[in-house]
């Protein structure tokens, strides 16, 4: 029998106004095991915590029940207090009489009655609590960053800066991500390449950073502090160590008609290619889908011209296994496919383009060397219509319900830059709302309207109709003047919604990290732990967590790095002691628990047992890796004999709570 102390918190008037706290303390005095029961103004205050500590000593308490706010709020506080007074922190139970009682009930009588029952349930549970000791596990002092865009680059640089080793896995042949395709950045209009490429070079040159380009994560095992990751290095048919990036092969390759993804397919590249001049690593890659040598063994031109003998047609995918203490997800985004938005004629006319394509059309390294020309006929567009929210804030089911956040600003940028460079151009922007909540953002937008004369029209474009003269008839409504508009445009630019990269979903499964319905990774707490996944040891950087612009991405990347550094700085981690435990004497060895365990925490072994009939038998029994188990309890229900139980939430504890509540 435990000696239990009960502490009922007033929480000022938060609880005391609707719950008769004295009556609760009084009623719980009579419960079996309770040797002390009292109430206090603020249990979480220092004085309140001291009350607990002193009572533990004075009454020799072995268990503590605090009737207060949600355990999500102060469970840790009270556990620490109990621990400092010499009892096991897991001998503390919280009865939530604020969020789940005083705040939702108006009637004092029923709220008090409920508070007493919740208190009794906590007392009944703590009766069966056992002291739990958290295990420790070592930390591998190396981090993995998945994704080599600006988010991943910044995170890696910051981690490396702190002195820890960090690997970047990037599925493209080069790091840099989407930012490499952007011409200028809002609201300062500095050149994206000028601020990004030095960071890419830093990564390549930092001896703490290892870049796995053209690679993907194939498998993740383990747990915080101790992940084992298999990285698949895709065959690029070029020896990375030998290739000097001279680029001769990319000029000599006879296959010239490969759509160039860097320029959004608006020009071509060769079958062997370096994505762009500042690529890191600056190493050529053979596109196996187009290479004649790989397809039918006839060619070998690049190999002939390569002076260092870097071409290796026989190269295979290889798997590298590495151990990491922390993993940062920085998988970024893609604009959505616009196939479902036929009204904008994206698939019918070359002159209906996405904003990212527009970005390439204005970039000096782009297909037009930076001169804004219509993709269809290479002529100067004189009327450009920008359409906002294509697939964003869309409840029709075709697009995304969320706001993609960056489109308002980059469209203002596009409009402004167009007007600056080509003052003879008419620029229209159709919008639902213009959202500019950022430093210098609204000023930037106002400049576009006021100084550059961009026509901002509140309303949606209903239809874009390609006409025989090559122009585009844009039908729209102006919601402010309530007019139907028909604009004869030369170019239509669609601000497509952005969505998480498709690879994120399967990655989330490997990482056992949770995602929301839009496939954005879920943060551990939306406000207080925004860069951590609920899965320990997994951190989030950049758009994989939600739409954000470059400054936000970089700040989140640094924040994630700070969290990783905090983790890697520790030598050992304390595990969650509320984990599953198998009673070997009752275990059937049936493997049901193993099948439902999401962490692979359960293993089986044959052990020798002294049986009840005093014979010796070898039996197959389950055991739980306490460092891997996260304590969900799926196994406990899969186990028919009840051999598998969960510490801290045992069958008997939960049933004791049920009994107390139903009394």
């Amino acid at each position, binding site marked *: 029998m435990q000696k239990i102390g009960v502490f009922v918190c007033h929480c000022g008037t938060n609880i005391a106004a609707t719950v008769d706290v004295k009556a609760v303390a009084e009623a719980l005095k009579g419960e079996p095991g309770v040797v002390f029961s009292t109430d206090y103004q603020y249990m979480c205050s220092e004085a309140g915590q001291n009350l607990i500590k002193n009572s533990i000593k004075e009454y020799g308490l072995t268990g503590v029940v605090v009737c207060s706010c949600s355990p999500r709020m102060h469970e840790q506080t009270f556990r620490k207090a109990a621990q400092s007074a010499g009892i096991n922190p897991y001998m503390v139970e919280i009865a939530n009489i604020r969020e789940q009682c005083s705040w939702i009930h108006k009637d004092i009588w029923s709220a008090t009655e409920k508070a007493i029952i919740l208190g009794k349930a906590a007392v009944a549970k703590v009766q069966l609590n056992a002291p739990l000791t958290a295990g420790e596990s070592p930390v591998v002092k190396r981090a993995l960053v998945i994704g080599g865009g600006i988010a991943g680059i910044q995170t890696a640089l910051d981690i490396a800066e702190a002195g820890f080793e960090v690997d970047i896995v990037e599925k493209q042949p080069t790091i840099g991500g989407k930012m490499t395709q952007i011409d200028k950045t809002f609201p300062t209009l500095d050149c994206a390449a000028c601020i990004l490429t030095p960071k890419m070079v830093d990564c390549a040159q930092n001896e703490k950073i290892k870049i796995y380009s053209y690679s993907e994560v194939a498998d993740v095992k383990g747990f915080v502090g101790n992940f084992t990751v298999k990285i698949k290095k895709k065959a690029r048919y070029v020896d990375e160590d030998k290739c000097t990036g001279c680029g001769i092969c990319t000029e000599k390759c006879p296959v010239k008609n490969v759509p160039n993804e860097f320029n959004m397919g608006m020009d071509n590249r060769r079958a062997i290619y370096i994505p762009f001049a500042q690529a890191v690593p600056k190493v050529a890659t053979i596109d196996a889908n187009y290479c004649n040598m790989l397809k039918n063994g006839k060619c070998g031109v690049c190999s002939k011209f390569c002076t260092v003998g870097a071409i290796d047609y026989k190269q295979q995918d290889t798997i590298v296994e590495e151990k990491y203490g922390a993993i940062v997800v920085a998988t970024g985004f893609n604009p959505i496919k616009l196939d479902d938005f036929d009204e904008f004629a994206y698939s019918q006319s070359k002159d209906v383009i996405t904003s990212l394509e527009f970005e390439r059309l204005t970039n000096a390294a782009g297909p037009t060397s930076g001169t804004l020309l219509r993709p269809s006929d290479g002529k100067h567009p004189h009327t450009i219509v920008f359409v906002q929210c294509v697939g964003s804030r869309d409840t029709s089911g075709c697009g995304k319900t969320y706001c993609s956040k960056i489109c308002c600003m980059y469209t203002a940028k596009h409009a402004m830059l167009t007007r600056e460079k080509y003052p003879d151009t008419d620029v229209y922007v159709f919008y639902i709302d213009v959202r500019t909540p950022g430093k210098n953002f609204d000023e930037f937008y106002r400049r576009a309207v006021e100084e550059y004369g961009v026509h901002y029209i509140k309303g949606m474009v209903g239809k874009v109709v390609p006409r025989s003269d090559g122009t585009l008839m844009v039908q729209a409504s102006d919601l402010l003047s309530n007019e139907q508009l028909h604009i004869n445009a030369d170019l239509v630019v669609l601000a497509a919604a952005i969505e998480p990269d498709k690879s994120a979903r399967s990655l989330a499964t490997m990482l056992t990290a949770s995602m929301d319905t839009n496939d954005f990774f879920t943060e551990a707490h939306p406000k207080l732990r925004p860069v951590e996944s609920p899965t320990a040891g997994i951190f989030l950087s950049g758009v994989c967590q939600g739409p954000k612009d470059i400054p936000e991405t970089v700040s989140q990347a640094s924040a994630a790095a700070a969290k990783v550094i905090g983790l890697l700085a520790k030598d050992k981690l304390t595990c969650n002691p509320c984990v599953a435990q198998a009673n070997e*004497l*009752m*275990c*059937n*060895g*049936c*493997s*049901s628990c193993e*099948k*439902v365990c999401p962490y692979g925490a359960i293993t*089986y072994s044959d052990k020798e047992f002294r049986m009840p009939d005093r014979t010796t*038998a070898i*039996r*197959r029994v389950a055991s739980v890796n306490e460092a891997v188990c996260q304590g969900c309890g799926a196994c406990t229900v*899969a186990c*028919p*004999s*009840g*051999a598998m139980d969960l510490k801290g939430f045992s*069958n*008997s504890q939960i*049933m004791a709570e049920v009994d107390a509540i139903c009394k």
Partner: protein
Amino acid sequence: MQSEMIKRAKELLASGEVARVVGWKAGEFDYDITPGVFTTAEELDSAFLYNDLCEANLSKYMIAQSRKEGKTLVFLKPCDTYSFSQLLKEHRILRENVYVIGVPCDGKVDVDTVKATGLTGICSMTSDGETVTVKTLYGDSTMSKADAMSERCINCKSKKHVVYDELLGEEGDVVADNHRFDMVEKIEAMTPDERFEFWRNELSRCIRCNACRNVCPACSCEKCVFDNEQSGAFNKGASDSFEENMFHIIRAFHVAGRCTDCGECSRVCPQNIPLHLLNRKFIKDINELYGEYQAGENADERAPLNTFTTEDVEPSIVYERGGKQ
């Protein structure tokens, strides 16, 4: 068939391939056959039996027998092999210590079914595969075998052996067009009040003798929750109607997705409670909600409760589906 089986058993014993044989032993009245272990040719000659009255499923005995020194030969009927295979899947039987001979079965004659026709004082009962001859204290009679078979054999789900080392006789097929869910459907079609009445009437007869549990090949726990004082479900007597419900619901739930529908539970119930109708409800629900699944059929397939799809139906389907209101 019986002489062939004895011949093979003797051969395997003589060659030292197996150390013992698990089969059926003759009783006093032809119908009271006991599962038995034979270790010598003499025992086999004097008591080994296989005929249309050998109802018992021998698979569960192999949990213990397979842990003995040397191999054990067991004769399994088609439906017994499903239980055996399920036990293998759950690592309960050491396969390398068992020699399985599959034996054919075209339905077993059930003494309770014969008694239900009104015959009493049955001293002898024999079947030639077509006709059953019954000798009683009060005269002799015959009936067709079909009339003497229990429901589980009439609605046989498979005459195919899913696991064996050797087969005697001809191999059969899965019986796709059985009517084993008819009674479940009938109960589902009742109103909730009728269903409650029906099951109360059945389960209130339970005397908690545990015969259903102890005979069940899926109920092979080292320690059953109902025998474990720490489990919170412990109870010994059917002290309250709640306990009767609790025991049978939880037992059915624990074997859900694992029960092969061998029907032993209903066969052995001294109170004639149709316990298989609980298991079949789960089987039917699983088939309808998660796709056809036959426990024991496939060694690699995951049990339906140990897997999921992201598109699974919501529990609220019970409100729409369920039975009649």
